């Protein structure tokens, strides 16, 4: 941030100077002069003051509001500050991407950022510094997921592999002896679970992000190709019922139509469902392995929670695709780039956060502490994911079809008619494609 917390008195004065200066700035607008320069100079004066301070404060963005509430963020900050004297960590949490996006629009965003899903690769250099010099390249997985022009801009906080997280006791109660390996068996198991009064699968519709797997992972699994989504830009109608995307949406629609989701599925969230799954009232959720420790700590034992690849088709071993979770980046306009880079390095190598979060550690040779991952690996063909291309993200934005964030699944599930919902998506896709073709 621009100011140092410890210099309170001085800080207050500076702010007042800034308040006073804005009136000057606006007076210039009135007189017809440009605001840009006047604003920038006001900005600079306040920043030079801060840069000369000995203690460097870096702001760090995180999506973990739960870790703010349980005090973990504070502990991480203290641990980092202990080994890095002279740097103070200030956390920023967000509930909704839009506020972060607005900060980026305005050009003032945290020193250490999370890369939002709708940023296209070619926009990365505009916001972040290349992180090639951190010396992590050969040590980590997923290093090229957020890269452009041969430079790395994002370092994954941890990796994910998606599958179905299930409660073993619930399966047992419904008479299911082993996890399904075909789509038909999956449907049959859902029916069995429902018959035994257990919610077969929780979707967490209201949170929206838990729905993303159905459109940004499952189509790739169905197609047997981790690059399938990127090929959608060549199709005029990728949402037809027989396409991998159409089939993926059809699976989640089938779940809802048969009453296999939560009874009040349109008013559900992850925080609630994890407790229900721990209690065995919910049997399954289609999420990443990171969900497992959270479900366990919501009130069950690790041995009661299992993990298997989504049986997306009726033949063959399903794919399990490994992808990075949120990626850390460093703000190009930061006054403390070296300090911010130190934090990124520390988060990945020394903080222990990947394991706290139940992630696949991004560092080669580091072991995950989620034993269930082995169960999934044994039943799947494990492959590395492929990053989204600029073309795909741009087409998603222009067509306003939210494939990455779960919005498209909400739209389809909310529509009165599945077929016409897909037609509508195809229509939007085609309009957008013809626009960008111009």
């Amino acid at each position, binding site marked *: 941030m621009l100011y140092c917390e410890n210099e309170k008195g001085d800080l207050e004065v500076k702010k007042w100077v*800034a308040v006073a*200066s804005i009136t000057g700035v606006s007076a210039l607008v009135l007189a017809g002069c440009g605001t840009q320069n006047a*604003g920038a100079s006001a900005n600079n004066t306040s*920043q030079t003051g801060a840069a000369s301070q000995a203690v460097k404060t870096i702001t760090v963005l995180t999506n973990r509001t739960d870790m*703010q509430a349980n005090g973990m963020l504070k502990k991480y900050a203290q641990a980092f500050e202990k080994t890095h004297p002279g740097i103070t960590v200030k956390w*920023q949490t967000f509930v909704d991407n839009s*506020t972060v996006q*607005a900060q980026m629009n*305005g050009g*003032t965003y945290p020193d250490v950022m999370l890369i939002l899903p709708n940023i296209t690769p070619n926009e990365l250099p505009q916001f972040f510094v290349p992180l090639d010099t951190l010396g992590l390249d050969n040590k980590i997985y997923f290093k090229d997921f957020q890269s452009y022009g041969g430079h790395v801009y994002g370092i994954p906080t941890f990796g994910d592999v998606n599958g179905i997280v299930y409660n073993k006791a619930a399966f047992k109660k419904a008479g299911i002896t082993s996890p399904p390996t075909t789509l038909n068996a999956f449907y049959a198991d859902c029916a069995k679970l429902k018959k035994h009064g257990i919610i077969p699968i929780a979707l967490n519709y209201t949170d929206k992000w838990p729905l993303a797997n159905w459109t940004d992972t499952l189509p790739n699994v169905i197609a047997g190709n981790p690059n399938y989504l990127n090929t959608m830009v060549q199709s005029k109608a990728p949402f037809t019922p027989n396409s991998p995307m159409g089939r993926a949406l059809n699976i989640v629609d089938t779940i809802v139509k048969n009453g296999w989701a939560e009874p009040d599925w349109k008013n559900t969230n992850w925080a609630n469902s994890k407790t229900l799954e721990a209690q065995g009232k919910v049997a399954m959720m289609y999420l990443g392995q990171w969900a497992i420790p959270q479900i366990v700590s919501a009130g069950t034992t690790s041995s009661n929670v299992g993990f298997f690849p989504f049986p997306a088709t009726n033949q063959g071993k399903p794919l399990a695709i490994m992808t990075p979770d949120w990626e850390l980046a460093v703000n190009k306009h930061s006054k403390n780039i070296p300090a911010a880079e130190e934090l990124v390095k520390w988060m990945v190598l020394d903080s222990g956060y990947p394991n706290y979060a139940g992630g696949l550690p991004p560092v080669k040779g580091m072991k995950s502490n989620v034993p269930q991952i082995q169960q999934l690996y044994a039943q799947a063909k494990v492959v590395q994911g492929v990053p989204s291309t600029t073309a795909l993200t741009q087409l998603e934005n222009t067509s306003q079809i939210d494939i990455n964030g779960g919005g498209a699944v909400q739209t389809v599930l909310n529509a009165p008619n599945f077929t016409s919902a897909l037609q509508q998506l195809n229509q939007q896709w085609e309009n957008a494609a013809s626009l960008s073709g111009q």
Partner: protein
Amino acid sequence: MTTKMTKLTGSIAKYMVLTIGVIVVVFPLYIAVVNSLKSNADMNRLSPLQPPAHPDWQNYVTAWTGGTLGSAFLNTFFIIVLAVVGNIVFGTMVAYVLGRFNFPFKRVIMGAYLVAMFIPTMTVQVAIFGIIKNVGLFDTRYAMVLLYLGTNVVQIYIYMQFVKRIPVSLDESAMLDGASYFRIYRSIIFPLLAPASATVAILQTIAIYNDLYSPYLYMPSTNLGVVSTALLRFEGPYSAQWNLIMAASVIIAIPLLLIYLFLQRYIFAGIVNGAVRE
């Protein structure tokens, strides 16, 4: 006889309607308070209508610390005080000038205030954002103060009405005594606008206390929550635990309710003054 009967039934009906209204108003409050006092076990065991046998105050402690409500109250208070004082000072100044003098562009200025009233603030945030950033106030409480000073313009109208009611003869006799215009503003206009200032203070306090999106946007740091954003951030990780969310909601409701308890008359008058412009 019959008229007496109709009168009686009329008055019974009247009380019934009012009582129904009171029930509809009080019921959600009852639900909030009762459930904020339940342990997790009671939440599962009892219907939402049933009060717990043993109130569990721990929820309030968790909500207070987990939601960082202490700093949220301080930040909210800080912003309200500065914004309200600023709005009163600037509002009286503008109303005095516009109400007492004729000068070129006066109508343009009045028109500008009218236009500003109709702009939905939320949709212009990106443009405003750049300004807040350029003056170096992003992620400070001053960003909010400045924003409220610039976008809450309804007080200009309230003050204009009150200024009109202050007799010009007061100004004139002061001028005969040799008072400057500034002195007239300071010793006559400003004090006589006190009732209008009370109105402005009340309306702005309520508006700022309830604002969600702007503080959410301009003060992302976790230590800079105001009550609305603190509650929103608290809800995320605890969205399954309604007893905690209700406790946090009750805590946040208390300050304005206390003010209401003591200043009821002024609040009613303030709302009426704010809406009715004769």
